[in-house]
């Protein structure tokens, strides 16, 4: 037996393979440990698809400016509220506060200490895809009742007498309206149903009766009680469902005769036939037909009433002729105790940016700017997050609360809910309106001049602010500093790895080809 020299029977190719595998693992682990991408941990959030585009924009801004990573996946406000509670994400985003039937979930959760940070506001647009006998229709006026009938009346047609009466110059087709609604839990659905309950109660009651008669099973309790619904009843009439604001927008984009409700940002970034999707002008309490533009939403939200927890009860009956209803706020739900301070630092930095400097460009995406009142409110809330950075002093030129006409209810008081003086900044408020191109606002030349002057002042302030920010940021960087190789190093290593992989693959393949060739 001893005469036979024995060696482990590992075939050479297996040895090569294990060597390659080993070196790959080593390379990957070197990359993992040596190259960190962002300073600090990635903070993950989910929820509101209404605010998603803006959050995506801020996420990219802070990644560029502060080198912090925010990961946001839009999935609907309900998902935002619930995922926050079950701990799968660091923060949630929702257009509405927790509902009464969710209270037991809050009680059961370990994350019941949280604040609502208002981050954005904007109009709920009715985007549609419609071609009439005279070609594509891009202007459509809807009365409040018609806007709701479209989504609740099963057999309504585009050339419905009432719709046609509102749009005398438009040749509407004799086809069924195919509303597209959200099939996931959505703050936008909630706001829109709340709007209908408030402005077209008879339509909503007819809807309730219809639902109860035609589909008793679907009759969810909130709907039965006349409360707004996050999950729009499914399978009623000719409505189809789709997931998230992007989902309904995509459905409208692809299907003719459709209309949906979603955030104006998604609506205007969805292209139909090469042009941004048309959106309907909706009648307000004053009887004016208003496009869903930021300034109009600002005015509409001026009627909202603050609640104790920092959210707002929306009102849909403001008397201002420039207001666009339905409009809504969106909030981030952030944990205040028990939160990892490192993550709190990142989240705080992000939110501070979002409500101050981040607000400068929101109108490009059809969101409205938050007023000083709301920005201050938000910054206060951010301070409650563990590890949050210092409160920025500069508000990046946030406009004062809008000066709105008194509505059926004491609307002005609502606007100044936090107790700030509502009346002082008429000119600046109008400036915001002018910048947004508010359809309904009528400005005198003096007001416009004043607005321009105010804007200049604001711009100067903004410059100062950004300098201050830069200082802030360097400080933040110091605290958050983790060795980063920078993109250069990472790319080099990656390229090398990629090259090695390709070479390895090539060698392997050529070996295979050669052996098979030799065989022949």
């Amino acid at each position, binding site marked *: 037996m001893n005469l036979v020299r024995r060696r482990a029977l590992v075939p050479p190719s297996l040895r090569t393979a294990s060597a390659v595998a080993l070196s790959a693992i080593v390379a990957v682990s070197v990359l993992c440990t040596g190259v960190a991408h962002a300073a600090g941990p990635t903070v993950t959030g989910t929820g509101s698809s209404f605010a998603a585009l803006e959050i995506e924009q801020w996420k990219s801004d802070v990644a560029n400016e502060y080198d912090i990573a925010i990961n946001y996946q839009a999935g609907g406000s309900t998902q935002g509220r619930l995922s926050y509670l079950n701990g799968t994400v660091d923060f949630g985003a929702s257009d509405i506060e927790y509902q009464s039937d969710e209270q037991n979930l809050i009680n059961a959760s370990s994350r019941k200490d949280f604040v609502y940070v208002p981050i954005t506001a904007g109009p709920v647009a009715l985007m549609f895809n419609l071609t009439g006998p005279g070609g594509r229709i891009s202007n459509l006026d809807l009365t409040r009742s018609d806007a709701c009938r479209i989504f609740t009346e099963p057999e309504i047609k585009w050339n419905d007498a009432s719709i046609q009466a509102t749009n005398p110059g438009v040749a509407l087709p004799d086809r069924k309206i195919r509303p597209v609604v959200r*099939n996931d839990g959505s703050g936008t659905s909630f706001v829109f149903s709340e709007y209908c309950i408030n402005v077209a109660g008879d339509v909503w009651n007819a809807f309730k009766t219809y639902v109860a008669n035609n589909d008793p099973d679907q009759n969810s309790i909130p709907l039965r009680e006349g409360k707004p619904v996050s999950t729009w009843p499914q399978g009623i009439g000719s409505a189809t469902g789709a997931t998230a604001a992007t989902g309904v927008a995509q459905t409208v984009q692809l*299907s003719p005769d459709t209309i949906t409700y979603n955030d104006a940002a998604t609506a205007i970034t969805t292209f139909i036939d090469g042009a941004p999707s048309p959106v309907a002008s909706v009648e307000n309490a004053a009887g004016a037909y208003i496009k869903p533009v930021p300034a109009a939403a600002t005015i509409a939200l001026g009627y909202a009433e603050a609640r104790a927890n920092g959210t707002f009860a929306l009102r849909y009956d403001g008397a201002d002729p420039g207001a666009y209803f339905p409009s809504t706020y969106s909030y981030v739900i952030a944990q205040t105790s028990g939160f990892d301070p490192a993550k709190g630092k990142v989240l705080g930095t992000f939110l501070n940016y979002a409500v101050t400097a981040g607000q400068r460009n929101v109108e490009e995406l059809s969101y409205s700017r938050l007023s000083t009142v709301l920005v201050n409110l938000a910054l206060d809330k951010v301070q409650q997050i563990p590890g949050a950075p210092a409160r920025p002093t500069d508000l990046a030129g946030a406009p004062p609360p809008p000066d709105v006409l008194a509505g059926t209810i004491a609307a002005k008081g609502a606007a100044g809910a936090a107790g700030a003086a509502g009346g002082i900044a008429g000119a600046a408020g109008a400036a915001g309106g002018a910048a947004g191109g508010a359809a309904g606002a009528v400005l005198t030349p003096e007001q416009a001049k004043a607005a321009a002057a105010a804007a200049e002042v604001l711009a100067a302030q903004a410059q100062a602010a950004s300098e201050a920010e830069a200082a802030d940021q360097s400080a933040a960087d110091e605290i958050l500093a983790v060795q980063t190789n920078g993109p250069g190093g990472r790319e080099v290593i990656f390229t090398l790895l990629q090259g090695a992989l390709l070479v390895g693959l090539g060698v392997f393949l050529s070996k295979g080809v050669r052996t098979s060739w030799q065989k022949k």
Partner: protein
Amino acid sequence: MALTSPDLQALEEQVPRDIARTVTRGDRIFRTLCASAAAVSLFIIGGTALFLAIKAVPALQKAGLLSFFTTSVWNPTVGDFGVLGLLIGTIIIATVSLIVAVPLAIGLALFINEYSPARIRRVLTSSVDLLAAMPSIIFGMWGFFALQAPLVGVASWLNLHLSAIPFFRLSEPDAPLLRSSFIVGTVVALMIVPIITSVSRDVMAQCPRSQCEAALALGGSRWGMIKEVLLPFGKAGITGAVLLGFGRALGETIAVALIIAFTIEANPYVLEQGGGSIASLIAIKFPEAQDLEISALIAAGLALFSMTLLVNLGARAIVRRTQIAA
């Protein structure tokens, strides 16, 4: 040692002796290792099934087993849910896909095995296998963007010419045809074609050439040979392959979720927008699911799993039987 059983009295009759099986330590370790690996798979996999069953109980209790399978609602917040519509929707989609896929797959298998020129046969076989490995999301997105428009054409053709068949009717003349069960079914069909093809091709290839030649030598045409020899030979295997494809079609998630306009209730108008399947229900509803709804989703998953389980076991049994016979 010889064992004498009491029944065997006759001395002449020999009794088999016991063979002492000594197992070396190495073998024992080896066997234990393999057995524990098997046990781990068993545990993981059996555990999954068991866990799903246990987790589904609260939902089924709340909704009632009967009502869970006989209603089409999804209001988990009030404990009211049922998957009847989705079960029907799942079956509709899978059936549509089978109707489209089976002729195509068997035709393709025959083409590869019997008709194609020899030099492209290997290429075809590889392509089919590659297609079988193609991710479903690729099929889904391609179906969504490239295939919908032509399929709407097919749908309107079917409706135009065959509306005598209830299957091809529309609820109203200008109903939207995008995102329908028919389109989803067709996309899923293209996904299961490679699976059915590659299994039935394997089975057909096992048919002894001598018998095929005998059929030809008797004056049979190629189709005669296929009909009389090849298909009877491969019948069980092909059935198994079709069932495998059916199982896959039942469980397909992403392509369905991506394309279909999701509804909880069954949509009997196959060509028309709207429909649903259990898998897409889970994909759409899980993010906002809590407690009872999770349990309800698991119950729905369990229902889907049982359905695919039955189909798959049937398929395996049939395929295995043919393999043994061959």
